């Protein structure tokens, strides 16, 4: 690999900020409740598919919001 191609590789993270694996006890407390099954399923998808999935969820959320609004207006 040439020096030029090395330069073109993205740098993973900034040396001027705390490292991405910085230990924070509050974050650690959140970690145990992260649903890794959702993440594993997402990582099987392409980026476009991930956004399509997000769009469908967003539309679903909008429908729920509208249904709630109709319920409140009818009450």
């Amino acid at each position, binding site marked *: 690999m040439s020096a030029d191609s090395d330069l073109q590789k*993205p*740098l*993973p*993270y*900034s040396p001027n*900020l*705390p*490292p*991405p*694996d*910085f230990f*924070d006890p*509050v*974050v*650690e407390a*959140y*970690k145990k409740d*992260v*649903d*890794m099954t*959702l*993440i*594993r399923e*997402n*990582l*099987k*998808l*392409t*980026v*476009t*598919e*991930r*956004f399509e999935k*997000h769009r469908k*969820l*967003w539309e679903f*959320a909008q429908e729920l919001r509208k249904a709630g609004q109709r319920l409140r207006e009818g009450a």
Partner: protein
Amino acid sequence: MIGDGAAIVHGAARMTYDVNVVYARNAENLARIVAALKPYKPYLRGVPPGLPFIWDERTLQGGLNFTLTTTIGDVDLLADVPGGGLYEQIVPFTVELEAFGVRCLVVTLDMLIQLKRAAGRPKDLEIIAELQNILENRFVKQPNLLDSQEA
């Protein structure tokens, strides 16, 4: 792209209602941004309708970070990101991806975690935990960023 959109790229199970874009402030790029968003009627988000707001290069030149609403969704245009700095300073920490047939730059998972932490918002603690879990589990060794790659 940074923010929760970038988190989705890296596999996070997250809902977001806006797209966070870091932009270069050279004249040519400002003109491109104005032209790209103009058809979607950009307007300042959260301000009363009817206030004078002209979407042009001069407006972009006169500000830095813009939180916009458009007919296709909310967009945050960021010139200076806490912890990350300007576009030129963030670009080295990005990877190129393709989505919807368009190629764009998205911050690396590592840098995204750093930016989320630098933002210092309590609401980000949960997503930092999620992103660190992705990082620690090394699911990202071979990120599936291009549509042309097999899922």
